[in-house]
């Protein structure tokens, strides 16, 4: 039996138990995009694969193409991101980012850009001083890479160049609306202040090193979050599975920070 074996690397996004001792594992790889393959016996305690195929782990793998579902034949950890896995808050962010990335990656298609962005952001999660802006950085860059770049320079309906100011963002047209168009379109818009618009533009154009140096972005981020998550929902046409958990942990983290501050 001649099998076509592909060697690549990937970031594990999820695993689902199947049968007695197997798992179906999903990964994002730079060379062949989304991989969905079975890891036979990976749930057995003595399995050589089980410990490596954990979500949010960067691995080197060999995948054998079979007539039915592809099969993982070898796996080795490159980076396990231990700090993330020991912190619920970081883990909720990493889970969200991997699920989001997975939605934009197809099987058998090169996905180097998305893979690199995801890898960069997961790595930064462990050291970035401001996690919230890192997640926004990830979302906004991902949108640019996948053809959904939020239009922040001209009106996304009529193309009029926008002078500095506060504008409504339309989820449907994926960008800002001039005041005239905003008067005609009422559904699914969210207001953005002058500073929030500037910040989104800055994130679109700069690398994370520069963005991380920005101060006083806290109140802007809440506004941007409403726009980005609304726009993302309209692009994907669904709610992400990790979103409720993300929101719950964010709420609890916020509460524990405020309760610590009041002590």
């Amino acid at each position, binding site marked *: 039996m001649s099998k076509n074996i592909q060697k690549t690397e990937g970031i594990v*996004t*999820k695993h689902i138990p199947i*049968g*007695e001792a197997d798992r179906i594992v999903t990964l994002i790889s730079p060379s062949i995009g989304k991989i969905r393959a079975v890891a036979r016996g990976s749930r057995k*305690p*003595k399995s*050589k694969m089980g*410990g*490596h195929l*954990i*979500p*949010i*782990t960067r691995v080197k793998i060999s995948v054998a193409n079979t007539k039915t579902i592809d099969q993982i034949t070898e796996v080795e*950890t490159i980076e*396990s991101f*231990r700090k993330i*896995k*020991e*912190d*619920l808050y970081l*883990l*909720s962010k990493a*889970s*969200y980012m*991997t*699920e989001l990335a997975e939605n934009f990656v197809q099987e058998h298609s090169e996905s180097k850009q998305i893979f690199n962005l995801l890898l960069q952001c997961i790595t930064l999660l462990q050291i970035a001083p401001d996690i919230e802006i890192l997640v926004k950085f990830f979302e906004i860059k991902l949108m640019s890479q996948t053809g959904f770049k939020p239009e922040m320079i001209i009106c996304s309906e009529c193309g009029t160049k926008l002078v500095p100011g506060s504008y409504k963002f339309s989820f449907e047209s994926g960008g800002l609306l001039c005041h005239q168009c905003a008067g005609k379109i009422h559904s699914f818009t969210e207001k953005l202040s002058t500073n929030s618009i500037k910040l989104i533009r800055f994130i679109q154009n700069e690398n994370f090193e520069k963005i991380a140096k920005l101060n006083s972005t806290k109140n802007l981020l809440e506004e941007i979050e409403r726009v980005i998550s609304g726009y993302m929902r309209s692009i994907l046409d669904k709610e992400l*599975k*990790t979103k*409720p*958990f*993300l929101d*719950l942990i964010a709420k*609890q983290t916020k509460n*524990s920070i405020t309760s610590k501050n009041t002590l």
Partner: protein
Amino acid sequence: MANHQSTSKSITNLIEQFSKLPGIGPKSAQRLTYYMVKASKEQAFDLSHAISELKEKILSCSECFNITEQSPCEICSSSSRDTSIICVVEQPIDVIHIERTGVFNGLYHVLNGVISPINGIGPENLKITEFFQRIFSLQIKEVILATNPSMEGEVTSMYINNFLSEKKIKTSVLARGLPIGSDLEYTDDLTLVKALEGRKLLD
């Protein structure tokens, strides 16, 4: 002809039922069905009776959510168990495994699953609120988190631990490390790190 059709319908029906069971594919389901065709009437009746009895008699313990024939279950209502210590597990089957070791004499709490962000399963889908309530009403002094060392199990443990550490309740997790009979060479980094962290002094 009509007769033949009705038999084949009951056969396909049973095959369908069998193949819904975990670990049973269409081939095994077929094999089991044709075995039952040949089996005696008594054996078939015993099987169906055992299954329906299970569903009539087995319920979920109102305290620990383990499966039981009486609620509260035997463990929860026993006077010889240590009620200051509680062991949190994912599934009823985990209780059976820990009980079999005979080294634990406290109470249990069955979560009926694990937090799995990627599958959209949050704390609200599990018996976690019930657990927190129980801790206070029983005045628990120590909690052992015995979820699986999978990512979902760890997330669940961390989530519960966040709550318990605020309440200053002594909490431990089962030691993570190398399975007996395993090979160091093939062990992943995470397991090795955990094994090193959880190393034990020799007497």
